[in-house]
Structure formats: C-alpha cells, structure tokens
C-alpha cells in the first residue's frame, strides 16, 4: 500500500528534480568531463513510503532510481524539490538522516574486502556511535539473523556473492535504522540467493516496521515483494501504486480458446476482429489467442463468437507477464499515473 494512501510517511519525496550538468571548463584541467550536455536524471519525482512498507522503484537503466537513492542518503543534492526522512531534509540535515537510514549500495565493492565480516560491522558500528557490549552483541545477532553467524571471522574476500550481499544488508541493519535504502540488493546474486535475500528483507521490514525503498531489475522479485511500486522512466514517475491496480489499469484480458479444427479457429478470429472486441490470432491448429480491446470484457469477447461459441472445447485466461504489462504501459505512453 502506498503511504500516500493513508499511512503517515517516513520517507517523503516531493517534486524531486536533478539535472547533471557538464563540468565547467576550469574543471576540465583536473578531470575530463563524463557528460557533454545536461542530463535530466529526475524530473518532478514524488512518492512517499510509510512504516512497514516496501516501496519498489522500477525502471530501465537511466530511469533515475540510483539518483533518487543518492539524494535520500545525501550523496547528491537535488536541483529542485525535496526529499526527507522523518521530516529531516536529506540535503541540509544529512548527518541526522544518515543515522536513520541503512543503505545498501549496488556495488559489493563497498565492503572492506580484507577485513572479516565482524570487522566490517564493527567499523560501521563505531562510525554509527555504537560501542562496547552493545555493539558486539548487535554484530553477533545481526550476522546470525542474516545466516552469516558461522562466517563472522572470515574475510569478505572469501565470501560468495550471495554472502556479500547478506553482509551488506547486515551492515545496513546493524544500527537499527528506520529506513532501508536498498539499491539493486540482488543484482550480483543467483536467483536462489536472491529469493532468500528478499525473503529476509520482507520479514525484517515487517518485524521492525521499517520503511524500505528498494530497486531491482528483476520484475518477478518485485511481484514477489507484493510492494508499493513506483515506475520511473526518463526521470519521471509513470506509475505509483500497487501491482494489482497496475494490472487492472494496463493489463488487457487475454484468452486462449480451443476449437475442434483449424477452420473453426480461423472463423473465430474473423468474428472477433469484425466485432471489434479484440485482437485475435491463430496460435496453432485449433487454438486462438484473443486480446480484449477497448475495455471489452471476457463476456463480450465470448459473445462475439456467435454460433461458434458452442464449438469452444476449452477456455483459459492467459496471465500477462509483468514485463509485458510494463512494456505495454510504456508503449501506450503512460504519464504520471497514480493508482
């Protein structure tokens, strides 16, 4: 559920814009510029995340996901708009915000590779102001919770990619943050490890009542999270709501109809298309796939078959993969839709 729908937001992003400009001429003596003209990374992005809520930022490369995260943790300043955590401004009160946020960057290199898992957490804990027995017991319990208890004294360099991802999550959780900012947490791990990691994230968010903002390229993961989704494209919010509402808005019913023979199937295609109820095509032999058009219901599609309805031997609703729903949405030019 979206925080904007009722829960008091912990994270609030309002009209956030970010334009990356080429470095000025005087700086090119120091370093050659990476960009030649203005790049609009974010353009008026707004969303909110409440306690106990997972908000998934989804979008293609360059959509603005990482820039949004960087603004939240204070690594980048917005060109316009505002991001806040518990009412604290991420730009002007970033030191205070950083106490409330647990950040998991996309790069596993952010760990200190020569140090052990426990040493990595110890260093982070000290910088967070933790010390003594409190810090030591947190390290033990956090590593145990993430399934790394028996690897506490192993150097990070010896861990698998999945373990490193879990250690990064452990670091983000060690100081009991209120907000988790997870940039591609499963980016470098295999599907099994990704599934485990997301399970851990979901249960921790629920247990601790955290507000979590997460990005992923893997849409099946976003579906599994059952989260509030913000779809970004070209720095703009294309959709803000839950996945079911997204499907209701953008997914057109698709039916697979089976007939006794190819001739009936071809006839059915002609009837459906003539009625304007849907787009139809013969898949193979006697199977027809129909995609409803213009808000046509399943009943209307069936009705368009006329006398052929009695020849239908089997009907099945085809679930559209999320990626196809999104592709359809982008193709049809969605603009700042909120459920």
């Amino acid at each position: 559920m979206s925080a904007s729908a009722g829960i008091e937001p912990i994270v609030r992003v309002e009209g956030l814009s970010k334009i990356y400009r080429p470095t000025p001429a005087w700086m090119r003596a120091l370093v050659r510029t990476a960009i030649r003209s203005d790049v609009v990374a974010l353009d008026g992005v707004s969303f909110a995340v409440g306690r106990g809520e997972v908000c998934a930022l989804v979008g293609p490369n360059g959509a603005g996901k990482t820039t949004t995260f960087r603004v939240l943790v204070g690594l980048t300043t917005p060109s316009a708009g505002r991001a806040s955590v518990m009412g604290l401004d991420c730009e002007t009160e970033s030191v205070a915000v950083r106490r409330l946020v647990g950040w998991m960057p996309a790069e596993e290199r952010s760990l200190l590779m020569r140090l052990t898992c426990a040493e990595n957490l110890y260093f982070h804990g000290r910088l967070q102001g933790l010390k003594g027995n409190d810090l030591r017991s947190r390290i033990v319990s956090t590593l145990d919770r993430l399934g790394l208890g028996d690897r506490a004294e192993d150097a990070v360099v010896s861990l698998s990619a999945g373990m490193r991802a879990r250690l990064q999550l452990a670091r983000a959780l060690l100081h009991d943050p209120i907000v988790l900012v997870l940039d591609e947490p499963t980016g470098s791990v295999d599907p099994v490890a990704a599934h485990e990691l997301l399970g851990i994230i979901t249960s921790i968010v629920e247990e601790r009542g955290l507000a979590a903002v997460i990005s992923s390229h893997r849409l099946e993961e976003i579906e599994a999270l059952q989260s509030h989704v913000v779809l970004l494209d070209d720095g703009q919010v294309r959709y803000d709501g839950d996945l079911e509402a997204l499907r209701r808005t953008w997914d057109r019913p698709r039916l697979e109809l089976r007939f006794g023979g190819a001739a009936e199937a071809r006839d059915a295609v002609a009837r459906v298309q003539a009625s304007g109820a849907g787009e139809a095509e013969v898949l193979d032999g006697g199977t027809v796939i129909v995609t409803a058009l213009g808000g046509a219901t399943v009943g209307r599609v069936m009705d368009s078959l006329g006398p052929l309805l009695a020849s239908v031997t089997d009907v099945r609703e085809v679930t559209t993969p999320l990626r196809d729903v999104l592709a359809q949405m982008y193709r049809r030019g969605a603009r700042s839709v909120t459920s």
Partner: protein
Amino acid sequence: MRPAAVAAAFLRMDFVEDVSYPLWLILQHLALIVPVFIYYFIGELVGSAATVGGDYFTFAMIGLAVTTVLQAALTGFGWALGRAQDRGTFETLLVEPVPWTVLPFAMNLWRVLLGVVSGAIVFAIGLALGAQIDIGGVPAFLLILVLGLLASVGIGTVTAAFMVLSKRAQPLVVLYGLAASVLAGALFSVEQLPRALQYVSWAIPHTYVINAAREALMADPGSFTVPVGTAVIALGVFDAIALTGGLWLLSRSMQYARKMGLLSGY
C-alpha cells in the same frame, strides 16, 4: 559522535587492513635504512662543512626523519581517499553519520602513525651510526613536530579537496612535498639556495620544522637556524591558515561534488 571515536575506528580499520600485508608493511620501513646509510657516507665525505654545523650526518638525519614524518601527514589523507575511491568504499564512508570535516584527521591517523614510526627508525639507525643529538631538546622538537604535522595535514587536506573533484590530484601533494624538502633544506643548508628561493623557503612550514628541529637537537645546527620560539609562532599561524583553509575547501569541494554528481566517479 566524538571525533576521537571516529579516529579510533579508522585507526583500527587501517591497522587490521595493513597488517594483512605484513611483508609490505615491514619492507616500507626497512627501506629507510638505505638513505640513512647513504647520508652517513656522504657525511663522512663532507662532514666538516660550516653551513651544516660540522656534523653533516646528524644534520641530514634530522632533515630526513622530519621530512619522512611530514610527508606522511601531507599525503596520508589523499592516499586514503584515493584508495577508498578506487575500491568503491568512499561513498559508504560518506553515508556514515560522521561530519565530513573529521575525515582528514581520522583517515590520516594511521599513515601519520606509520610516518612517525618511520621517522623514529631513521633516528634509531642514525644514533646507532653515531649521530649526536641533545636529549634536552627533545620536548621542544616534539612540539615543533606536532605543529608541523598539523600544518601538513592542513595542506594535504587542500590537495584532497581537489582530489574529490579530480580523483587524481595526489601528484600535486607529492610534488609539493619534494619541493618543500628542497626549499626547507632537508639535506643542505637553506643558505645554499639562490637568494630568491630562500625567500620562498620562509613561506613553507617545512623550513620552520626542519631548521627549528636542528636548533633544538644539535649543539651546532650550522649557519642557518630558526629559533624554536619563532618556529612555534610561525607554525601556529600556518596551522590556523592551512587547517581552516583546508577544511573549508574540502567542505566546498564535497558540496560541489554532491551537486555535480561527482562523488561516485573514480
């Protein structure tokens, strides 16, 4: 959070990391034996020059030891910053709730400590080879050294501020360190420099640290000396300017990097 706790955390992290490369750690100190021996033999050759107080080896040993320590303080923060940028750990540090102005001190501490150990090794080898120092001058020497270290940290922070933006500014500070050791007369008397360069010498902290150290530790420091009192005042001024300027510049540089999106680059 207290800056001392942040510094202790960095010190521990750098220590744990560096001791995981034991041979490198030992060899970088052992390598100092070579120059000490070189200056010992040069001292045997030219030992009685009046400009160096008649004891070139002690004169050069103090110059070498002090330069070694100051160079560590100059380059330490930039070195740690560059390493963090290359490894991808820099942003993780910046996301910790630590004021960024604490970083030049915290990230530098281990390198400064290694520099002090290196300087102590130079002194130890020098004394073993017959260098003569006045033990009574050690407290004054240590005071001068601490003030010099602070000035070097400040100048190193200025360079690090450029590094945040340019990623590769370390040669600047290395060049400065080498030039400073020449201008400050680390291995010869400042009087041997051309007149114009002697004026430049007064504008760098190294000159006060090295020559006041000789004044404090040598019975006859040669013809070019800087009284300890003068050095303390001058270094106090340098510290105030370099540290304030360095931290201000670093802060501005960080703000600019956040605005331009440059913090993630390397």
